[in-house]
Every structure is written in C-alpha cells, then in structure tokens.
C-alpha cells in the first residue's frame, strides 16, 4: 500500500513537471555539445521552417564567428594586457551574453575553453587548428532559444522573473503541440533588441560599447517623434533574417540621396589661378541632401 502511494505521488510529480515544461534549472555543461542540448534549437525548424530559413541566413546565426577579431582582442589585449585579469566565464560573458547567450549555461571550464577557441580561430585562421576551432564556435550563436527563452525576460525581470526552462516565449504566447508558450510582449518592443544592440552593462557594471544604436534610437529618434520599433523595420517582410547594415538593400531603403547640380559662370578676375583672367570662369554648384530615414544614427558601430 505504501509503495503504491509513493508511486502515485511520483507519477503526479512527473506529470506536473511535464505541464510546466522542464522547470528544473539545467546543470552547467562541460562541452559545447552538452551545452547545445541544454537549449536545443534543432527541432524548432520542424514546425517553424520559414523562420529557421530566414534566421539561418542572418547575422544572428553567425554571431560568434563573425566577431572573432573583436572577441579575441578583448581576451588577448583587454583582459590579458590592459586589465591584467584572467579569462573567466564572467569576463567572457561580456561578449557572449549577447553573441551566444547559451554560454550562460557553460561551466567555468567550458567557458575558458570557448575563450581559447576564439583566440585559436582568429590567430590560426586558415590552419587545421584554426579551422577546427571555428567549426566548433560556429555551433554558438544567437539561436532560437537565445531570444525566445534565455533573454526573453531580461528587460522586465522584476515583472516577469527568470525565464522558465523549456518554455518558449513569444510575442503572442500561442501554445503549440511542440512546446508550452508564454506571452512576452517585450519581444515586440525595441527595448528587447536594445539589451544587446546598444551599450551593454555587464553584471559587474562594466560598460561594453560594440554599437550604440539604442542611444540614438532612444534619445534622438524618439525625441523627434519617431514611433517605429526595431522590429517594425528589421522584421518587416524579412522575419528572422533581421537585415541591417550588412544588407545593401536595407541600407539603401534607410537613406535618401538627392543631388542637385547647377552651373554658372563666375565673374572674370575673381578666381585666382585661371589661364585667362579676363574670361568668365566655368563653375558648378553641387548640393547633396542626404536623408537618414531610419530610427537610429547612420552609420553605427
């Protein structure tokens, strides 16, 4: 009888866990492959193929390997030479909390290894060791769960609390057969993007300035009456591809260029250095109007 009751309680416990996703806090990973299993993005594309296809061509998909130089310099110049500080997970997260948020779940040992891979991939580019390091680092990026879970509540943590493990956060919170969902309206607001696309404040207070988009958005664009969100422009028609400064068509869309060219003849004798001081001087006035139609300064970063 006692055994039956215990089994029943265990079953109820399991049921409860499955209903809230996997609420247990995941352990820290010691390898990159273990890390990827903690927040597994691999099955998202089965239902969200279009979003996955868009994302796979985005800079979010290569957020680590596209920034090796800057991150290597932070480790070798910033930490090693200027700050005389050892590479630790806390230090590495000053880059990777945004470039690969999943590294928050790495063990101290793995974080240091990832730092080493970054240095190797950059310094030994084109060699077997460098290419192998880059291949490993290519597994790290701003993936589905980076935004839809790990960073989902960051901008409103007091209100929303820590993200629930195993649950998918989205702007509408629609449940699906594949996962439990929680509505996170913040994901549709500029503030959500600004947590990384702006001045980043590390938990220890250090300010990291990869780009400053949020500053000009908040203090210039909004101040002048602008009301579009980052998502309004950078997800419109393109979804999770998030085109920006790397995409010429997007750059073109954000800028206006009106050039007016007019000629006249300047008064004789008024322009020094010409051959005939008594002749009219051929002259041209070029006026260029360059319009920034975007919600932030151009260029940025």
């Amino acid at each position, binding site marked *: 009888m006692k055994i039956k009751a215990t089994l029943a309680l265990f079953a109820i416990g399991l049921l409860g866990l499955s209903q809230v996703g996997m609420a247990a806090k995941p352990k820290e990973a010691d390898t990159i492959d273990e890390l990827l299993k903690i927040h597994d993005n691999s099955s998202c594309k089965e239902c969200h193929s279009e979003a996955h296809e868009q994302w796979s061509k985005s800079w979010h998909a290569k957020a680590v390997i596209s920034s090796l130089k800057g991150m290597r310099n*932070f480790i070798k110049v910033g930490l090693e030479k200027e700050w005389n500080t050892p590479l630790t997970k806390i230090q590495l997260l000053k880059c990777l909390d945004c470039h690969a948020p999943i590294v928050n779940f790495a063990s101290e040992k793995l974080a240091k290894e990832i730092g080493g891979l970054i240095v190797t991939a950059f310094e030994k580019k084109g060699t077997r060791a460098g290419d192998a390091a880059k291949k490993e680092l290519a597994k790290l990026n701003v993936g589905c769960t980076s935004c839809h879970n790990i960073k989902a509540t960051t901008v409103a943590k007091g209100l929303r609390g820590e993200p629930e493990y195993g649950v998918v956060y989205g702007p509408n919170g629609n449940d699906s057969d594949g996962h439990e969902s929680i509505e996170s309206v913040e994901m549709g607001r500029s503030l959500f993007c600004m947590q990384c696309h702006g001045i980043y404040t590390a938990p220890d207070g250090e300010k990291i300035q990869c780009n*400053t988009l949020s500053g000009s958005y908040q203090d210039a664009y909004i101040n002048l009456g602008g009301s579009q969100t980052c998502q309004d422009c950078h997800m419109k028609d393109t979804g999770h591809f998030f085109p920006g400064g790397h995409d010429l068509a997007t750059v073109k869309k954000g800028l206006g260029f009106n050039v007016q060219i007019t000629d006249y003849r300047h008064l004789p004798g008024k322009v020094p250095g010409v051959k005939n001081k008594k*002749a009219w*001087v051929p002259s*041209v006035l070029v006026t*260029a109007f*360059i319009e920034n139609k975007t919600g932030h*300064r151009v260029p*940025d970063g």
Partner: protein
Amino acid sequence: MVLDVTAKDTKGKVLFAEKKTYFEIGVDTDRDMRYGAWQIKEIIDLTLPPLQTQKEQYLMHFDTDTDEVEIEAKLWYYISGGKGDVVYSVKKKMEFETD
C-alpha cells in the same frame, strides 16, 4: 559612410575631388580614440542623426578653357573596414561656353 564628389574633364582628369565622412569616434575615459568595445566608453558623433537631412554644398571653379566636365556624387557605405559599397550615385555632364 562617405559622400564622394568629383569633377572630371573629358579625358578623365580629376579637376575637383572632395569627400565628407560620416562616422563616430569611440573614446575611452581619457578621451583617447579606441576601437575595442571594452575600451570605448563614450563617442564623438559625426554620423547622420535619425529623421534628419544633411545638406552638403560644393562650389567648383574650373579653368577658363574648360568646355565640359562630368560631375559625379557617390554615397559609399562601409560596413566593416575597407569593404565599401556605393549606395547611390548621381552623374551629370555640364557644358560651358568658353570665351
């Protein structure tokens, strides 16, 4: 981002060339220019502000025997370092009566 304005004669010789660069300068707390994201604490902003139109004017004088010039204005966007793309380009041929 660079506005590049040139004037060339019929043989392609450059008679006028001016560039205006829009960019931001990252500085550390000593106000020394820096490139590292961990070093930059403030910026000097020479970019195009949002929702604003910048006006640039260039007045060119050519020699008195110049009868034709081609004016070109190009807007370059540099996404990283030396890789630049022409976003917009405007060309116009100007003819002058000479004395």
